[in-house]
């Protein structure tokens, strides 16, 4: 525990140093990145000790804040969330060191590192906090520091708007968390997590669960509380987007799981609700991702999709726990939690890759890019690995976690009616999500990296800096390694699931063992696939050896004068699927109708706005604005009357209490 505390202190101190030494920009950049990397590596080292001996990982000192105590702890559940936090933070910091060089003299680099390191420290603190006040403070620190990072390029109008939306949304979430903690604290009379253990009866737990679902769901981006996510994540610098999308939104999942350990035996409908929200988030997330033309926005929507998959896994686990089907419980939780770790890796990787592209080309519009694989081969290949992983293709890590959820669902098809209903729902939505995700990332990779350069944006692109490449390669390797070594480490989840469910460890280990054989067969198949690919490549090379190879531009197709504009665009690639789901997506098309053989100025534009922000939140906010607009006469700016209000309030309170 002391080591973990040290790493937190290193993070904060190095951030403050970087901020105060901002005048020497190179030093600030190096200091911030080095501090973050060191602290995270130290933290990673400490995690193994924590996992093996969770009882020792406790730290508590009294705190002057009412009801607060500075108590930290780390059990296996904390460890599984801290692991991606530290790993991805270290790699993103490494990446950020190169990425921010571009902004020397234009931006406040020291402040960016201060908030980055604060964000990492507060995420770790959220996961380790064992007191409600400490948790909420860390939670707020996390929200505010990430908001400042989103506003890195705050002079742009849409970035400022994104920051505002994020700030408002995250505080609405915090409001529900506050209510939830008050409900929990009122019942037991203490704000320490340790006092909340134990079963409760009646209506209370369900109410607390719903508050947690809304509060944490806003941070995690459950549909329909996700509207801030596609705005804020693209606006942030890419290493921050990677961190926010990869691990920050998972703190919501962590919070939900942590709170559920206080509520005793869960009701079955909680699990069904989680599954429903999960499949809704997954399908809508990937659909909207498919329709986007901004690649960072696409990745942000895809985060919503993956949060949906995580939720489905956890929902299955909760259902399994409540109907006492231990196999279902173990597989569900294992799938969900593994996907938490996996998503951190491949989404981090994809955002870092996207950042490298943005860094080189200066645009986030896919339709302006193309052919970058030839200019940025390493970035392109890493992006490809991430894209394949996120689609859940074997032998990469995304497949393993989705496989566990599938496996649990197929096994429960012989259960009770409601369980069958849920299982079939999960299987169909996972299949739909997988297919759409494949289409979505084929589009992203194909349009950005394949074909020919479409505009001047990509003309001068070259490979990203060495640290940027290094962190991407490490993440890509991690995706492959996790995919191939799944049967070896799946046993690690036993203790974590024991923490979440309170079931005996031996039973969980027994269930996890059952997943071993199919996982091994998956790995064997993957290795076979790999061998086939290698053999094919060798075969091709041997066939081609000694022959003259002529290279033509992509999409040459025998045209007399091929032009980059003849290529598929992002919207034309996605058009069949987008049209099929047009009832949900409501993509707006603006086209100048072509009437003559040689049109003068044809144009075509598609835009897909968010369903919920357009149909739910905008009308709601509009009516709220109309209502509050009627109260502006109270807000006139006359000092005397403000004091009068205060006096009225004080006198009213005084008389009421008398």
């Amino acid at each position, binding site marked *: 525990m002391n080591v973990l505390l040290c790493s937190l202190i290193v993070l904060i101190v190095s951030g403050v140093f970087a901020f105060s030494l901002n005048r020497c920009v190179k030093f600030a950049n190096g200091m911030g990145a080095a501090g973050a990397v060191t602290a995270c590596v130290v933290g990673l080292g400490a995690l193994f000790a924590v996992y093996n001996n969770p009882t020792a990982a406790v730290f508590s000192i009294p705190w002057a804040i009412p009801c607060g105590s500075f108590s930290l702890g780390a059990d296996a559940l904390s460890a599984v969330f801290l692991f991606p936090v530290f790993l991805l933070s270290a790699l993103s910091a490494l990446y950020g060191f190169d990425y921010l060089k571009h902004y020397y003299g234009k931006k406040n680099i020291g402040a960016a590192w201060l908030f980055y390191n604060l964000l990492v420290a507060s995420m770790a603190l959220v996961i380790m906090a064992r007191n409600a006040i400490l948790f909420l403070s860390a939670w707020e620190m996390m929200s505010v520091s990430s908001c400042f990072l989103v506003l890195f390029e705050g002079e742009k109008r849409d970035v400022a708007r994104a920051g505002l939306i994020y700030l408002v949304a995250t505080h609405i979430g915090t409001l529900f968390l506050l209510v939830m903690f008050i409900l929990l604290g009122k019942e037991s009379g203490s704000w320490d997590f340790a006092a909340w253990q134990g079963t409760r009866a009646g209506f209370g737990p369900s109410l607390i669960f719903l508050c947690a679902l809304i509060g944490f769901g806003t941070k995690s981006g459950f549909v329909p509380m996700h509207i801030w996510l596609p705005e804020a994540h693209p606006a942030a610098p890419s290493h921050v987007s990677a961190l926010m999308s990869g691990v920050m939104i998972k703190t919501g999942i962590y919070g939900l799981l942590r709170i559920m350990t206080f509520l005793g035996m869960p009701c079955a409908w909680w699990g069904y609700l989680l599954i429903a929200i999960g499949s809704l988030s997954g399908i809508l997330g990937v659909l909207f991702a498919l329709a986007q033309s901004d690649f960072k926005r696409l990745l942000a929507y895809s985060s919503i999709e993956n949060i949906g998959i995580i939720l489905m896994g956890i929902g299955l686990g909760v259902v399994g726990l409540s109907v006492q089907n231990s196999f279902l419980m173990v597989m569900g939780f294992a799938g969900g939690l593994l996907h938490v770790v996996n998503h951190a890796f491949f989404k981090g990787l994809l955002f870092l890759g996207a950042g490298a592209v943005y860094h080189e080309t200066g645009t986030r519009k896919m339709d302006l890019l193309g052919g970058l694989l030839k200019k940025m081969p390493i970035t392109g290949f890493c992006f490809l690995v991430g894209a394949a992983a996120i689609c859940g293709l074997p032998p990469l890590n995304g497949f393993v976690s989705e496989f566990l959820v599938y496996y649990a669902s197929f096994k429960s098809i012989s259960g009770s009616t409601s369980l069958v209903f849920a299982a079939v729902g999960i299987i169909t939505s996972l299949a739909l999500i997988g297919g759409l995700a494949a289409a979505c990332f084929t589009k992203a990779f194909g349009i950005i990296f394949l074909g020919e350069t479409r505009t001047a944006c990509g003309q001068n692109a070259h490979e990203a800096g060495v640290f940027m490449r290094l962190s991407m390669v490490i993440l890509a390797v991690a995706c492959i390694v996790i995919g191939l070594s799944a049967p070896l480490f799946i046993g690690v989840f036993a203790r974590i699931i024991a923490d979440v469910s309170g079931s005996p460890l031996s039973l969980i280990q027994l269930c996890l063992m059952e997943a071993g054989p199919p996982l091994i067969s998956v790995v064997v198949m993957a290795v076979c696939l790999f061998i086939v690919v290698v053999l094919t490549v060798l075969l091709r090379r041997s066939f081609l050896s000694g022959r003259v190879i002529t290279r033509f531009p992509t999409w040459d197709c025998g045209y007399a004068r091929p032009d980059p504009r003849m290529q598929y665009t992002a919207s034309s690639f996605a058009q069949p699927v987008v049209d099929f789901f047009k009832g949900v997506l409501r993509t707006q098309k603006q086209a100048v109708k072509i009437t003559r053989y040689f049109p003068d100025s044809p144009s075509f534009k598609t835009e897909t706005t968010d369903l919920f922000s357009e149909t739910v939140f905008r009308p709601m906010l509009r009516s709220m604005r109309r209502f509050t607009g009627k109260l502006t006469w109270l807000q006139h700016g*006359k*000092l005397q009357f403000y004091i009068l209000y205060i*006096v009225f309030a004080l006198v009213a309170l005084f008389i009421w209490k008398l």
Partner: protein
Amino acid sequence: MTMWVDFIIVAVLLLDLMMLSSSRIRNCIQIAAVQGTLVGLMPLFVESHPGALSPVVASFFSIFLKGVVFPWLLFRALREANIRKEVEPIGGYPLSLLMGVVMFAMGFWLSKRLLYPDPFVPALGAPVSFATFFTGVFLIISRMKAITQVIGYLILENGIYLFGAVFLGGQSLLVELAILLDIFAAVFVMGITIFHINREFDHIDTQKLSELKDIITSK
């Protein structure tokens, strides 16, 4: 001794009413100074608890601040900011006086509902304290100039001090002194601010500060 206490209490009430009716800032500062000196004398006449702060020290401090330092600071602000002599009330002086009576009545009503630890207290103590408190608040609300708000603040504090001195004996004096120090800092800062507002805007009318507000209400 009780006679003196009653005398001070009645004098404080009369000074409140005078304050409400006076139209000159110079007068207002003088009245606030006299009232501050009178309530500052209060600890000398009430029975103090054993072990409390010496009443003489407390008296000295509060009289020194309220009777000498604050008036001096305010007069200085008045001179340097070159403020016009009138207090510019919202409403008018008759209305202010009427409000003074209403506030006194309200003080009576409130004091009837309080429970006192000691039954032998001056009958007028609580009502006049409340009335003074409300007068201070009323001055803050109803006078345009920033400097009259400082004066209102001082009157408000006099009300609190009177209440503490009459009902809590010496116990509250330590707290009172702490508040006095705060007020001292506040008056000092306000004196500087008034000067600066005046320099930047050529007036110290707080109503016109609404030009600074950021939310433009829909007209």
